[in-house]
């Protein structure tokens, strides 16, 4: 009896802790969404500035996600399938952006593109990253590529190379075997990776702020919009932007849970 009581005490304390956490996380979110009236929210959403921020966020995140896929597919394949000199060092370096504060990443990117001859050469060629929307894309790419890479690496690792071997005996080249067999088998990984990279891209603030700055109607993504409008007291606009960010996060969280359960992100 005593034992049971003791056991249920532990149960009560632990369950209460989790309940407290859940409340602590939901309340601020509810606070944001319920702070203004629905009509004020609609008016703000229709404003030119928020419309611009939405469009810029969706576009930059889509482009940086495509860039992440383009480079992660071959890189993740190599890391999953081959043994080569320096592989573990490369693996560690590729994970670094996960641990690095985005603000610091932004400073590094700013110095790279703003002060080095490499950055100047790119600028001369017409690719200006400092204080432009291009900078937002690069910042998102830098911070989020490890997510895509890790998910795809895990996905490729989970696929037995024998599928490709069989495909090769059935008339495929190596590339065709990858395209016709491994890619379709990686569908869930691609979906999970794209959703998480895209939604994190939309929320990216620190690195983008450093490299692309916070210029109204020029490099104003949704998080930048929250920041700018909070700074100058435009609460309704800030909340409109924040609400959209919340909705996007919830959708992506749901999609990731649904399709990415197997993928190893951290």
């Amino acid at each position, binding site marked *: 009896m005593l034992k049971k009581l003791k056991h249920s005490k532990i149960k009560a304390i632990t369950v209460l802790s989790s309940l407290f956490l859940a409340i602590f996380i939901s309340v601020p979110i509810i606070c944001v969404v319920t702070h203004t009236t629905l009509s004020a929210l609609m008016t703000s959403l229709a404003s030119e500035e928020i419309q611009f921020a939405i469009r810029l966020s969706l576009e930059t995140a889509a482009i940086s996600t495509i860039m992440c896929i383009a480079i992660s597919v071959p890189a993740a394949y190599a890391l999953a399938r081959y043994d080569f000199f320096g592989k573990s060092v490369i693996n560690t370096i590729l994970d670094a952006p996960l641990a690095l504060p985005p603000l610091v990443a932004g400073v590094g990117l700013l110095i790279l593109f703003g002060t080095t001859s490499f950055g100047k050469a790119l600028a001369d060629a017409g690719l200006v990253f400092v204080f432009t929307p291009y900078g937002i894309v690069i910042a998102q790419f830098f911070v989020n590529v490890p997510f895509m890479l890790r998910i795809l690496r895990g996905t490729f690792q989970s696929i037995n190379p024998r*599928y490709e071997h*069989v495909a*090769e*005996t*059935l008339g495929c*080249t190596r590339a065709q075997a990858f395209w*016709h*067999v491994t890619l*379709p*088998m990686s569908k869930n990984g691609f979906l999970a990776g794209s959703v998480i990279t895209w939604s994190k891209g939309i929320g990216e603030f620190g690195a983008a702020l450093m490299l692309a700055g916070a210029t109204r109607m020029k490099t104003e993504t949704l998080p930048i919009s929250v920041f700018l409008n909070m700074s100058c007291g435009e609460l309704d606009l800030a909340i409109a932007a924040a609400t959209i960010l919340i909705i996007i996060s919830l959708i992506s969280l749901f999609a990731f849970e649904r399709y990415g359960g197997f993928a190893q992100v951290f």
Partner: protein
Amino acid sequence: MIRIEHLSKDLGEFFLRDITLDIKDGEYFMVLGPTGAGKTILLETIAGIYRADSGRIFLDGQDITDIPPRERNIGMVYQDYTLFPFLTVEENIAFGLKMRKVARSEIKRRVDELANLMGVVHLLHRYPGTLSGGEQQRIAIARALIMEPKVMLLDEPLSALDPQTAERLRQELKNIHSITDTTTTIIHVTHSFEEAFLLGSRMAIMNKGEIVQVGTPNEVFRKPNSEFVAEFLGVGNLFQGESRIDADSGIASIDVGGINIVSATLKSGSVHVSIRPEDILVSTKQIVSSARNSFKGKIAGIVDAGTILKIAVDVGIDTPFVVAITKRSFDELNLKMGREVYITFKASAVHLF
């Protein structure tokens, strides 16, 4: 014809060392060996998935060592089926022809034909994940056969199946030449001696990346050329004969050329009979027991096999029985060459296949 000359490949954990083999057109060739002997990588190197470190492979006189798998016309079937899970059975079987850009109507015709021969017509619209192991393996075989390969490589195709399914599929593999045209050469890898014996026209025994013996199953079995082969095959007594089932007593009686062996395994017709040397009792006088088999013979050979002795007992048929006994029993029974003894074993110790 496949000719393999001094083939070597090192993949670290698995490796091949100086493999030389000649396999004839239309032959059903077995490769037998323990886990880790390098059997799978031998097949994968023949298929072209791995490049040989050294040595050459010839197919019909053409050197194929350096050409990619898709140009070799060699089919591959793995133990774990490796059917493409995102394609239906029909699309799986059609995969190779689609890669070759064969006309759609022709693909349809060939898929139906092969599905028919492999007995999987009713499964064509299903996905592999919902099928049993036996069904998946038939589809994997059909998917390879549709390419009309010159050589089929089978990597333990029966090992993942339950005994009944394996037995049925083995029968079909035995008749595979009636499905394919008769020149399809088959190389079948297994760790089961029984499979090798029943299917192979010839077999190679592999150990630690090397071929240790090649021959017909009978040759290899009768004359193992090394301790390893003898140990690995380990069956001991093997006979061939005609089996008849006695319905009244519920036992099988096998005539193995002079003597009748009684078995508890019910199987009729032409069979192989095996009895492990440890299951046979030797005595100097006839003993009365429940064991159904007892024969009188003479000791024709004595071999010291370490902790035990193996003695050969000639009972008047072609091959002597091999019996394993401890040294102590050997001394106590005062056995020696030419001495008359009785051997006794139970009907349940007689294995038929």
